[in-house]
């Protein structure tokens, strides 16, 4: 088990290095940050001086290595646009994105599993068929369109919920601003969370449904019924648990993408999170911010996948034996 985790951590670090390399090499093609940083009335000397000061005159491998060196120590450099340390800016923005991702993640997982089980059990029912048809909308509509439709309905027409921003926030400790503790903060969360989580919710639901239908055909389900176990025990204890290996895989990937693709939702709802920060950074060719953001996202992806791999072992006892090499 320990050897397995160490091996997976090693692989994860390799993935991160490659992601960093790819990201870094792409930045060379999106424009010259110096253009944006200095005004119209600049001299060649100014440009050269700034370039040297930022280390952009160095060859690419040297730049990459310097970036890694700093990143390991939690130092991602200074934002070209804001002139403040990137780590500080991201920490300031992260709570907004993480709270949004948390709420939409819970929405997607809880509702996705519940509806998936429901549609599998009541396969022939009208309710299940309506949900299945409606879920096609969730899978096929692009996120920004769902956001705009929700804003139109609930903010413009009904006026129930705010169309942008986080509402009022409260500081917890030094640097965590939360929207969970105020009414306007909670209200402001609803529409973006649904927008961000709807696709993942329908995906999880459809996956749980098809896995459940497969498991419900198995002999051990028949045997569980033949022992007179209650429906609830058959569906949730025996069947649902057996669908969890593929479902947890997909949930892991989807939670990663909830954080990564918060960019679109944050743009639509002007949500002051790291996604919006990233979009602004691209417009300004703010390389330190972009690099730090991409590394952060890939750390999360890799971390979640590592957790998923470990979860398998908890879900399925057969994997414990195989990992230990007993067979």
């Amino acid at each position, binding site marked *: 088990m320990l050897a397995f985790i160490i091996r997976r951590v090693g692989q994860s670090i390799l993935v991160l290095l490659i992601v960093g390399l790819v990201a870094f090499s792409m930045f060379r093609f999106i424009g010259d940050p110096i253009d944006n940083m200095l005004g119209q009335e600049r001299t060649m000397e100014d440009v050269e001086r700034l370039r040297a000061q930022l280390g952009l005159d160095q060859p690419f491998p040297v730049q990459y290595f310097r970036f890694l060196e700093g990143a390991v120590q939690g130092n991602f450099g200074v934002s070209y646009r804001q002139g403040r340390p990137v780590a500080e800016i991201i920490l300031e923005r992260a709570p907004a994105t993480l709270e949004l991702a948390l709420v939409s993640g819970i929405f997607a997982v809880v509702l996705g599993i519940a509806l998936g089980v429901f549609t599998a059990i009541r396969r022939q029912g009208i309710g299940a068929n309506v949900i299945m048809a409606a879920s096609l909308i969730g899978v096929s509509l692009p996120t920004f369109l769902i956001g705009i439709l929700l804003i139109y309905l609930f903010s413009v027409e009904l006026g129930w919920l705010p169309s942008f921003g986080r509402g009022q926030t409260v500081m917890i400790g030094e640097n965590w601003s939360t929207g969970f503790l105020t009414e306007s903060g909670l209200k402001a969360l609803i529409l973006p969370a649904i927008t961000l989580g709807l696709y993942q919710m329908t995906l999880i639901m459809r996956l749980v449904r098809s896995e459940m239908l497969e498991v419900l055909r*198995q*002999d*051990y389900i*028949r*045997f*569980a*019924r*033949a*022992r*007179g*176990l*209650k*429906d609830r*025990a058959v569906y949730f*204890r*025996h069947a649902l*648990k*057996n669908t969890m290996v593929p479902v947890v895989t997909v949930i892991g990937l989807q939670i990663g993408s909830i954080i990564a693709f918060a960019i679109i939702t944050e743009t639509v709802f002007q949500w002051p999170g790291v996604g919006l920060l990233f979009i602004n950074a691209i417009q300004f060719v703010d390389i330190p911010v972009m690099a730090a953001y991409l590394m952060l996202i890939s750390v999360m992806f890799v971390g979640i996948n590592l957790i998923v791999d470990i979860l398998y072992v908890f*879900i*399925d*006892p*057969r994997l414990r*034996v195989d990992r230990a090499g007993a067979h």
Partner: protein
Amino acid sequence: MTGPVLSIRDLSVEIPTRAGVVKPVDGVSYDIGRGEILGVVGESGAGKSMAGNAVIGLLNPPAHISAGEIWLEGARIDPLQGEAMRRLRGKEIGMVFQDPLTSLNPLLKIGDQLTETILTHLPVSREEAERRAIAALDEVGIPGAAQRIDSYPHEFSGGMRQRVVIALALCAEPSLIIADEPTTALDVSVQAQIIALLRRLCRDRGTAVMLITHDMGVIAEAADRVAVMYAGRLAELGPVREVLTRPQHPYTDGLMASTPLASQARNRLHQIPGSMPRLTDLPDGCAFHPRCPLVQAQCRQNPHPNIGKGRAACWFPLIERAAE
């Protein structure tokens, strides 16, 4: 209580299909007494499992009981639905399936599967349920039951798993066990152990057993009486010694002749010509007549025979022919 544990009267099961309604079970009647093992034998598709599923209320829709009655311990159970039927399953009727590798949930400890079943049916505390779970494993011959309670199914061999399955079927002390091909997926050496176990448990507890199998050897070894099924109908029903040594139905006779016996050094096995008709395409008259070596005009014209005064559903049972 006297009288049979299970009594099936004129049971029919129907499945509506695109090709019309088929009857995988058609007018079947038999009883099983306390501590008795009834072997139900027949080819695949003869309706033997379907009858067992009808008794425990686990027919897959659209299959349903279309006629007849099922009585368990003097109470009629075939009209029971949903929750009432669920209470009966496991508590009054236990079931053992063919493949022990797939009938245990791979993700749950066997102890949890046992206590869960006990707690569903019996008003006992969790500690008492765990104690009974260990006792049940011990009774089916799992060595070190108290330790194995925390094992997962994959940690057992096939034969041991079938013992666990039997413990699960018996743990709420049902009066009837339906064992659907319980030895088919096992090694021959293990088969005999499982049969012996089943016999011992049923004798000790007075449990009635419906032993469904296609294996005449298993029937000969385990059963007290035997019901031979063909194309959804009973062909012959009687004490196992008599049916096996002096079959009255030509189908039983053919079945016996085509069973390999180690003691008999036969060079070639007998074969029954043809194959069982499809249920959508049953012949008129006796369903067996196209394959019967002794077929007569009456077998084609008359409706299907019922079991009359003899043991066999045949217009010309072998015993009479022998007497002529």
